[in-house]
Every structure is written in C-alpha cells, then in structure tokens.
C-alpha cells in the first residue's frame, strides 16, 4: 500500500472518528442547552415586545441570532468533518488510479487531509470569534485545499485510462 493511500485511509478513519466524537460530545453536553437557549431568546424577544419593552426585545433577538450562528456552525463542522472523511476513505481505496507520480499523489492526499481538517476547524473557531476575518480566510484556504485536491484527483482519473 502506497503512502498516499495510507494517508487517505488512515487519515479518513481518524477524521471520521474525531468528527463523530465531536458530534457526540456536542449532542450530550451542548446541543440541547443551545436549542433551549435559542428558543428561549426568541420567546423572550416576542414576550418583551408584548410588554412593549422593545429594548429588551431587541437584545433578546440579538442573542437568538448569535446562538443560531454558533449552532449552525457547530452542526456544519461536525457533518463536514465526517463527510470529507468518508470521501477520503473512498478515494484512498482507488488512489492508485490517479495517474500521477507517487510524490504528487502524496501532495494531493496531504492537501485533501489538511483541507478536510482545517476547513471545519476554522468554521468552529468562528463561534468563538464571530466574524473574525482571519478565521474566514482560514476556512477559505481549507475549502480551497479540498477543491483543488479534488480537481487534481478528477484530472488524475481522466488521465488514468492507460495506466491504472
């Protein structure tokens, strides 16, 4: 088994297990409380408006927006880690058919692994620093690594008819 395949299969299994562990701890310790907080903030916003306290209503609505911002990113990171991990394992099985030299294949595999780990991580970190440009840039770099690796793999497959 070549190094690039090892990287993709082992990295994929490890990333899938990590993504699932992250989802499990989130479901156990954070998700229910977050959903309660999200619903509670929205209810508080409407209730305050019913009491004609528009300042409190606006503050509660702001809390709702921030909680939802975090929730969406936590769920997205969990699902993207596992989804990208599955893609890595699947590609690892057939990576010999990507018709590049092993050195290039290792570079592409590393790019896919790095992007798959980095992109969801940057998304999660945004929940601690809302709107931080550096984290958005990191997420863009991560997703660019994944997309460019996938484009290279597709190109490698297209070249592979004669050389499996």
């Amino acid at each position, binding site marked *: 088994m070549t190094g690039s395949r090892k990287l993709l299969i082992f990295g994929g299994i490890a990333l899938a*297990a990590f993504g699932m562990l992250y989802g499990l701890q989130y479901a*156990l310790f954070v998700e*229910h409380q977050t959903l*309660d907080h999200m619903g509670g903030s929205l209810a508080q916003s*409407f209730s305050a408006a019913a009491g004609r306290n*528009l300042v409190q*209503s606006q503050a509660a609505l702001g809390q709702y927006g921030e909680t939802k911002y975090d929730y969406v990113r936590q769920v997205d990171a969990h699902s993207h880690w596992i989804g990208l991990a*599955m893609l890595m394992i699947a590609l690892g099985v057939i990576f010999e058919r990507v018709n590049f030299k092993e050195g290039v294949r290792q570079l592409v595999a590393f790019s896919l692994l790095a992007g798959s780990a980095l992109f969801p991580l940057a998304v999660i970190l945004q929940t601690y620093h809302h709107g931080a440009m550096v984290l958005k840039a990191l997420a863009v770099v991560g997703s660019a690594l994944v997309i460019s690796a*996938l484009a290279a793999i597709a190109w490698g497959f297209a070249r592979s008819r004669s050389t499996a």
Partner: protein
Amino acid sequence: MPAIPRPMQDSASFAPMNSARVFSPGFGPGVAPSFERMSARRLYIFGGIALIAAGLLFGDIFAVFILHQNAARQGEALIAASRAVAAGNTAAVNQALGHLGSVLEDRGTKVDAHVHMIDAGYLALLLALVQPYIALSRQTKKSLAALFIVGGVLLPVGIFLIHYVGLTGSPFAAIGWASVLADSSGALLIVVLIIQAWGFWQYLRSRQLSEPELLGFELPAEDSTPRRALLTGGTILVLLGFLHGAYYAGTLLYEHERMETTILRRMIDAAAAGNLDVVTTEVNNFGGLAGERAVNIAAHSHIIEFGLLAMLLSFVQPFVFLSDKWKRRWVKLLLGGSVILPVFVLLELKLGLLAGGIADIGGLMVIVGLVGMLVGILRYSGGLDVAEGAQ
C-alpha cells in the same frame, strides 16, 4: 497474526461479471449457500446499501408528506405569536412560540434521522472496502460489522423518536430516553470505528493480514462501463457540490443570517405597533428566506452525497450479480436521479411545487436504482471471494 486457511471452494466459483445466463439452478435471493455464513464485508455491503435505501425512502416520504406542511405550520405559529404581541398577551406569546419550537423539533429530528441513516450506510460501505486491511480475526470483524449495522439502525431510530418521546420518564433535565438511545448508538459506531482504525494500524505495523486469502482483493479488477460511469459521474457530482457550497458560503450564507434577524426585528416591531398586515408580509418573507436557505443547503448536501454514493457503488459493482444490461439500467437510473433531485430542489424557488415533485421523483429513481443493486448483491453467493483467493 496466524493465517486463516483458505475457504473451501463452493458451488459459486464463477466470475460475478458474467451475465445472468450463467446462474446456477435454484440460485436466487434467500437460497445462496454462502449467505449462511455471511462475512463482515458482505454484512457491511448489504447493511450499508439497505441503510442508504431506507434513509432515502424516509427522506422522500418526509419531503412529500411533512416538509411543506411543516413550513406552513411554522408560519402559522409566527403569525399567532405576532398577534399575541399585538394584543400584549405574554402567555399567548409563550404558547405560540412553544408550538413553533415543537414544529421545528419535528422537522429537525426527521432531517437528522434521514441524514444519519444514510451516512451510517456510507460508512458501512467504506468499511467493507477496507476490511482486507483490518488486521483482526475474522470473527471479530464479523461481530464488529453486526454491531455497526445495529448502531446504524438504532441511531436514526433514536433521533426520530426524540420528538415523540420527549422527556417522558427521563431523569435528566434536557435529555430524554430517545436521545440516550441515539447517543448510545452513536457511541457504538465510534467504538467500532476506533477498533477498525486500531486494526488498520496493526496491519501497517505488521504487514500481516488476518485473512491473507483476501490479499489484493480490496478492489476487484473489473473495469466495466457501469463501474466507470459511477466513478466518473460520482467525482463530477462531488466536485459540483463543493463548488456550489463554496459559492453559497461566499455569497449567501452571511447575507441570509443577517436577513433572518432583520426580518424578525421588523416582524416584532410591526406586531408591537399592531400592524398585522406588515406582520403577515414579514412572516411570508421569513418563510421565503427559510425556503431559500433550505433548498441551497439541500442541493449542496444531496449532490455531494449522491456523488459519494455513486463512487462507493462503483466499488461494489463486482458484487452486484446482474447482467451488464441490468447493471447499466440501474446505474443510469441512479445517476439520472442524482442529477434531477438537487437541480430541481434548487429550481423549487422558481417553479414551486412542480419542481418539488420532480425532485421527489429524482429521489425515487435513486432508491429504485439502489434496490435493484441490492437485489443483485443478494444474488451474489461469494464466488468472487473464492476466485480471487485462488489466484
């Protein structure tokens, strides 16, 4: 690790890519002899495809009978809450928003059950592919496969039940028994995965397989048209999905998040001012925004998942014991549905329920293609194992 003797060659030692004309007499679903001692790989393949087909069917039923009705109930709850705000009735506000929370939980748990069932199926197919490199005993691998399939079934069942069981009889403040079932099943899947990773690590260290007769068998050398079509089509679908996701995240995600709080702000202000016409307009805007987000996310996730599914199915084609003609039919149906569903989900914003109906048909096409392949796998008797092992 000691080698396990090569299995005795059974009556099914034909190449699986042969046409249906060479089926042995009496060979068919339920009678194939080697299914009496189903290997870990076959458990993963059969269980994985069954989980994916069941998850897709559940998603289709959800889309047809629940999704749009649920969206309408969300709008009704928001209108009721706004009217309560206008009347200054805090108790009625809480009641309406409690109802909204229940409606959202109903939708969310069904979407999660759909996604987790399909993803567990994908993982099962992936684990089937790497089994030759998991340096564990045959019996351990088989037990792990059974545990994985059990976890893959119970996890979405637990998620589905969360809305109905709630906190009934639960000793916890926020977690009900259905959540406990779902979380325990998720933990079971994680444990199986960690053991598989350990087995793979053992292989990397020792280079010894527990089933050496499967050496070189991780990807049977069939190079058929259905297999190439699934691999190429799948890669293209995944790439398109990534590009769409990047476009959505870059241009629409933050704008949609900002618009949601803006619309809610205008809705609440209008309700406090007693202007129910504006409230109705804003509730409609809120529904439109939710719809736009939902179709973009659904198109993104479905096109990638179908792409991955096509790639995975390309690997298991040698185990689909059907004639090439039927294999091609199922592949065309599956790839056609994989394109139709996400494209028409996106078009739902412009074409309305007509596009939704066509998207549902696309989903049905994928399900029929999958079930067709599943039938082919049921007809597979293990001949390929023996043929490859004999080389």
